[in-house]
């Protein structure tokens, strides 16, 4: 996390935003590493790998005050054009509303029932995912996605982007869920959150699933 020096803030203010209140940037650091991140309000830079939750738990002013100045840390900085920035989140390759014309989050949709043989996936940073019980069932209130939507996700970082996960660490552990016919699910579209675009399909297993319905895990690439 770095505080932009006034010169960089002025330069950033002359360039377009990537979204409301932020710019996605590429930075060359003092030790010649190229890194990407998000600059908020043209003032505060959080690198891609840094957690975003501190933005919620501390005031913007206090984060700025605590941050080190970018002066000796950054050699160059550029705002990524929209097309390049979107490659950061290239998981978004399928139109958001392509599944059942759902447009809101799953929790706000009407319950429906799964069909025979329907398959779902779940991505997690954790290999020992606590939502999966030892008997191979999902706990109630657990989220997954459709098998089709999961095909858009090739890496753990893409899962973070597509499902707008607050934990920026790659969700590279993939589990397969094969619930019994008529299992209750709610299907919706992941809304943008945590500086991630969302857009993937989310499936809420409000009542969980039956024993021996979750298998895996298989590991996909981190990035």
């Amino acid at each position, binding site marked *: 996390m770095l505080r932009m020096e006034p010169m960089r803030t002025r330069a950033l203010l002359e360039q377009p935003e990537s979204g409301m209140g932020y710019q996605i940037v590429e930075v060359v650091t003092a030790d010649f590493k190229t890194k990407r991140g998000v600059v908020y309000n043209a003032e505060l830079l959080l690198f891609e790998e840094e957690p975003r939750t*501190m933005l919620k*738990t501390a005031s913007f002013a206090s984060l700025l005050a605590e941050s080190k100045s970018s002066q000796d840390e950054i050699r160059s900085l550029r705002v990524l054009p929209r097309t390049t920035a979107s490659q950061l989140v290239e998981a978004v390759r399928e139109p958001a509303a392509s599944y059942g014309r759902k447009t809101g989050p799953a929790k706000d949709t009407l319950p429906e029932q799964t069909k025979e043989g329907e398959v779902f996936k779940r991505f997690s940073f954790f290999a020992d995912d*606590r*939502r999966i019980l030892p008997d191979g069932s999902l706990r109630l209130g*657990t*989220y997954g996605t459709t098998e089709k939507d999961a095909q858009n996700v090739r890496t753990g970082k893409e899962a973070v982007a597509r499902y707008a996960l607050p934990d920026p660490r790659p969700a590279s552990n993939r589990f397969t869920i094969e619930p019994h016919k008529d299992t209750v699910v709610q299907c919706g579209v992941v809304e943008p959150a945590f500086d991630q675009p969302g857009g993937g399909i989310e499936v809420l297993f409000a009542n969980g699933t039956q024993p021996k319905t979750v298998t895996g895990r298989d590991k996909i690439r981190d990035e």
Partner: protein
Amino acid sequence: MRIKLDKKWIARLVRLPESGMGYQRVDLRLKDGREVKDVAVFNAEELDLADEFARIGIKDVRLHSN
């Protein structure tokens, strides 16, 4: 600062629904009486807290409601 919740909070959270894939949004009550609202907990066990809160200790954890 990333912290790991005590077992009793983990045991509570795993019985409660998720807010999205792999996480729950919670409100924390700290031991000094302050509240920290809408914090994401990953896998019912890990969360990021500002240093000033993380050192105090947690008195209660509840799901965040909008």
